[in-house]
């Protein structure tokens, strides 16, 4: 076997492996609907972690723009659980939400609201929030809200809001 053949076989092997591994990795990403009760439970039952709850939509450009920073928070801060809840419609999961989640390789849980009305989400979250997205809420390990970040924010701003919780411990 000459050197070129060995190179070609190695390259072929790598490509075949990628074809097998990549779809498995990507298919692990799902988007599910979430009810008001389930979201309430997620906020309340923190199991020692801080929650960064991001409310977003695929039609919202600043929401999409801040996603890389949310991903970085999720990867770098181990004591923080990031959850993104989309206010798109549940019938848009396959067409809009899931393709975005796969493209971004989002490492945290992404849901879409399946509430009886949008008012239920407003009742569940900070009364100061009037529905503009993106909106991000930080909850401490007891499920108590400690920050409401209105509009688009950066990695450092998210991190600062989280550190305020950590420092108060």
């Amino acid at each position, binding site marked *: 076997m000459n050197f070129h053949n060995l190179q070609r076989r190695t390259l072929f092997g790598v490509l075949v492996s990628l074809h097998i591994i990549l779809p498995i990795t990507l298919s692990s990403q799902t988007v599910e609907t979430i009810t008001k009760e389930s979201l309430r439970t997620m906020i309340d039952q923190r199991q020692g972690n801080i929650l960064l709850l991001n409310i977003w939509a695929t039609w*919202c450009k600043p929401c999409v723009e801040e996603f890389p920073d949310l991903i970085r928070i999720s990867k770098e801060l181990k004591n923080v659980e990031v959850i993104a809840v989309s206010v798109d*419609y549940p019938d848009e999961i396959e067409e809009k939400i899931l393709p975005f989640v796969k493209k971004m390789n989002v490492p945290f849980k992404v849901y879409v609201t399946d509430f009886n009305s*949008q008012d239920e989400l407003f009742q569940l979250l900070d009364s100061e*929030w009037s*529905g503009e997205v993106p909106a991000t809420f930080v909850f401490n390990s007891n499920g108590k809200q400690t920050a409401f970040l209105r*509009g688009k924010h950066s990695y450092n701003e998210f991190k600062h809001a989280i550190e305020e919780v950590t420092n108060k411990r």
Partner: protein
Amino acid sequence: MNRALPAFMIFLTICTILIAGTPEKVDNFTLNDYNGKKISLSDFKDSKAIVLMFVATQCPVSNAYNERYNKLFEDYSAKNVAFVGINSNKQESVEEIKQHAAEHGFKFPILKDINNIIADKLDAQRTPEIFVVHPTTYEILYHGRIDDSQRESLIKTNDLRAALDEILAGKPVTVKETKAFGCTIKRVK
């Protein structure tokens, strides 16, 4: 009695803080529309109510309401309700607003709120966001959404229409405050 008064004042202060956010009224203001014409709230003193609509050219939610803006204008301007669009988004130019209004056949004026001064005064946060204002006292009679769904087929409550119907009937507005998902108004820093 002397002890009760400070306690009551503290209670009042706490209540005021808790309900702070949307102001109860707005001062008369003047802004230019996309043709450069100055328009003031006082121009509509003879109307039954003034509907201030924070709108956008690039926001998909606001754009989902374009036909509904027109239908509302058509239905209620005939009943002497004034409609005024306000664009406070820093990135949307006067020329863009003018072109967008022409494309969608808006017959109501749209004012450019440079430096989001009026959005700040009203604490408006999103598009679309509605304030119905009394034509002479400028008291805010209704604040919130047009209806409860971007998709017309899923609408359960026509909140703005309900408020306007009550105002036109001389009744107090039953639901004065509502919320809805929308695009954040992009402010100057």
